[in-house]
C-alpha cells in the first residue's frame, strides 16, 4: 500500500512547498498585515495626539476668552467709573456756573431795581415838587420854597431844649458856622429869614452859608459838624418807594418760580 519512494518524494515536495510558501506567502502577507497594523496604530497615535492637541487648544481658547471677558468687564467698569466721575465733575461745574449765573442775574436785577427806584424817586420828586408848587401857587398863591422854609424854621423853633443844646454845642465846635442845603437857589429874603431865625435860636454870631444839594429832592437841611436838621419831600415818598419795591420783588419771585417749573417739566 505504501510506496516509500513516493513517501520520501512527498516529504521533499512538502518541504519545498513549505519553503516556497514561506517566502511567497506567509512572509509577505504577515509583513503587509504587520505594516498595516503599525500604520493604523501610528494613525491612531497621531489622531490621539491631535485630539489631545485640539483639546489643549480648546482649553487655551476658552481661557483666553475668559481673560478677554474679564478684561472687557474691567475696562467697562473703569470707563463707567470715569464717565460717572466726569459726569459728577460736569454737574458740579454746571451747578457752579448756574449758581454764578443766578447770582450775577440776581445782582443785575438788584442793580436794575435800585436804578429804577432811584430814577423813580427822582422823577416822582420832581413831578411831586412841580405839582405841589403849582397847586400851592394856584390854590393859595403861596410859593413852595417859602412854605418849605417856613415849615423848616417852625420845626427849628419847636426843637426841645436838649436838642437845642446839642446843636449849639455842635455849632460851637464847628467855629460857629452852619451850612443850609436847599434843592434850588433861595431868594435873598428867605436867606435873611433863615439866618435870622437860626441866630435867634442857636448863636447870635452864627455864620450861615447856603448851598445847593443834589441829595435833597425837594427840601431844606441844616448841616453842622455833628447834627443835621432837615425836611425833605423824600420822607413822604418813602412809603411809595417801599410799595414799588415790594411789588417788583413779588413779580421777580413769581417769574423765578415759573422758570423753575418750566425747567422741571423740560427735564
Amino acid at each position, binding site marked *: 500500500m505504501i*510506496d516509500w519512494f*513516493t*513517501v520520501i518524494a512527498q516529504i521533499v515536495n512538502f518541504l519545498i512547498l*513549505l519553503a516556497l*510558501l*514561506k517566502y511567497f*506567502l506567509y512572509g509577505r502577507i504577515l509583513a*503587509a498585515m504587520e505594516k498595516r497594523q503599525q500604520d493604523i496604530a501610528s494613525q491612531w497615535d497621531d489622531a490621539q495626539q491631535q485630539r489631545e492637541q485640539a483639546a489643549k487648544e480648546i482649553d487655551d481658547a476658552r481661557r483666553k476668552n475668559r481673560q478677554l471677558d474679564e478684561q472687557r468687564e474691567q475696562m467697562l467698569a473703569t470707563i463707567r467709573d470715569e464717565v460717572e466721575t466726569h459726569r459728577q465733575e460736569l454737574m458740579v461745574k454746571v451747578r457752579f456756573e448756574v449758581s454764578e449765573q443766578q447770582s450775577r442775574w440776581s445782582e443785575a436785577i438788584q442793580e436794575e431795581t435800585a436804578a429804577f427806584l432811584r430814577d423813580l424817586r427822582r422823577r416822582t420828586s420832581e413831578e411831586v415838587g412841580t405839582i405841589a408848587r403849582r397847586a400851592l401857587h394856584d390854590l393859595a398863591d403861596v410859593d413852595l420854597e417859602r412854605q418849605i422854609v417856613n415849615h423848616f424854621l417852625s420845626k427849628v423853633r419847636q426843637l426841645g431844649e436838649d436838642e437845642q443844646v446839642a446843636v449849639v454845642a455842635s455849632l460851637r465846635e464847628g467855629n460857629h458856622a452852619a451850612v443850609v442845603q436847599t434843592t434850588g437857589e433861595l431868594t435873598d429874603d428867605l436867606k435873611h429869614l433863615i439866618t435870622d431865625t437860626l441866630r435867634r435860636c442857636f448863636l447870635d454870631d452864627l455864620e450861615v452859608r447856603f448851598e445847593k444839594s443834589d441829595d435833597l429832592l425837594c427840601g431844606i437841611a441844616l448841616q453842622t459838624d455833628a447834627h443835621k436838621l432837615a425836611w425833605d419831600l423824600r420822607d413822604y415818598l418813602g412809603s411809595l418807594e417801599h410799595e414799588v419795591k415790594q411789588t417788583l420783588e413779588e413779580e421777580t419771585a413769581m417769574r423765578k418760580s415759573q422758570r423753575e417749573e418750566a425747567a422741571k417739566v423740560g427735564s
Partner: protein
Amino acid sequence: MSIKDLSPDDAVLWQWEFASLNYTILYTWIVMALMVLVSWLATRRLTSRPQMSRWQNFLEIVIGTINNQIRDVSQQKPERYLPFIGTLFLFIVTSNLLAVVPGFHAPTASLSTTAALAILVLVAVPVYGIAHQGFIGYLRLYVHPTPLMLPFNVIGELSRTLALAVRLFGNMMSGAKIGAILLAIAPLFFPIVMHALGLLTGLIQAYIFAILALVYIGSATQAHDTRSRLRAEHNTARAEAD
C-alpha cells in the same frame, strides 16, 4: 488508473529503477505549482493600505484565521508554527477541494502522501519540542509522570502518527472511490451531492489534520511553558513570604 486501483500511487507514468513518477507525485506538483502561482500573483503588489486587491484580502483572511487558530489552540505566539501548520492545512485543503475537478486525483487520497505528512508531524513534534525546551527537557516528557510510562508514551507517539495518516487517507480515498462508484451506478444526480459532501469532508479533514498536528506540537512545547510558569509563580510566592 482504474477504479480497482486503491491509490493514485498505482498509476505509474514513468519508472526508472525504484524511482517512479506516479499520479500522486504529479498531482502534488500541480497543487504545489497552483499554490505558489496564486501566492506569487497575490503577493506581487501587496499594499498596507485599507484598499487592497481581492486576492490579497482573501489570503489575509486565510492567513489571519490560521494565525488566530494557532494562537487559540497553542496559547503561544503563532509565527513559529504558521509555516508548518499553515502549509499542512493549505496543501491538504487545496488537494481535497480540487478533488471535485473531473480528472483530478487528490494526492491526499494516497496513503503514501498521508504517511509522509504524518511522518513530518512525527518529526516536527520533537524538533519543535527540543528547539523550545532542549533535548533533555523534551526527552523527560516521555518518562512523565513516571518512567513506567515510557513505552506507552512511545507507542502513543507512533499510534497517533499512524492514526493521522490513515484517517486522512481513509476519508479522502473513500470519498473518491464512492464518487467513482456512484458515477457508474447513478450518473445523473447523486454524484453531485456526494461531491458536495466530499468538499465538506475534505475541508473538515484538513482542519482536523492541522489542528491535531498543532495539538501534538503544542503539547510538546506547552509542558515546558507550564512548568516555567509554575516555577515563576512559586518563586514569586516565596519572595513575597520572605
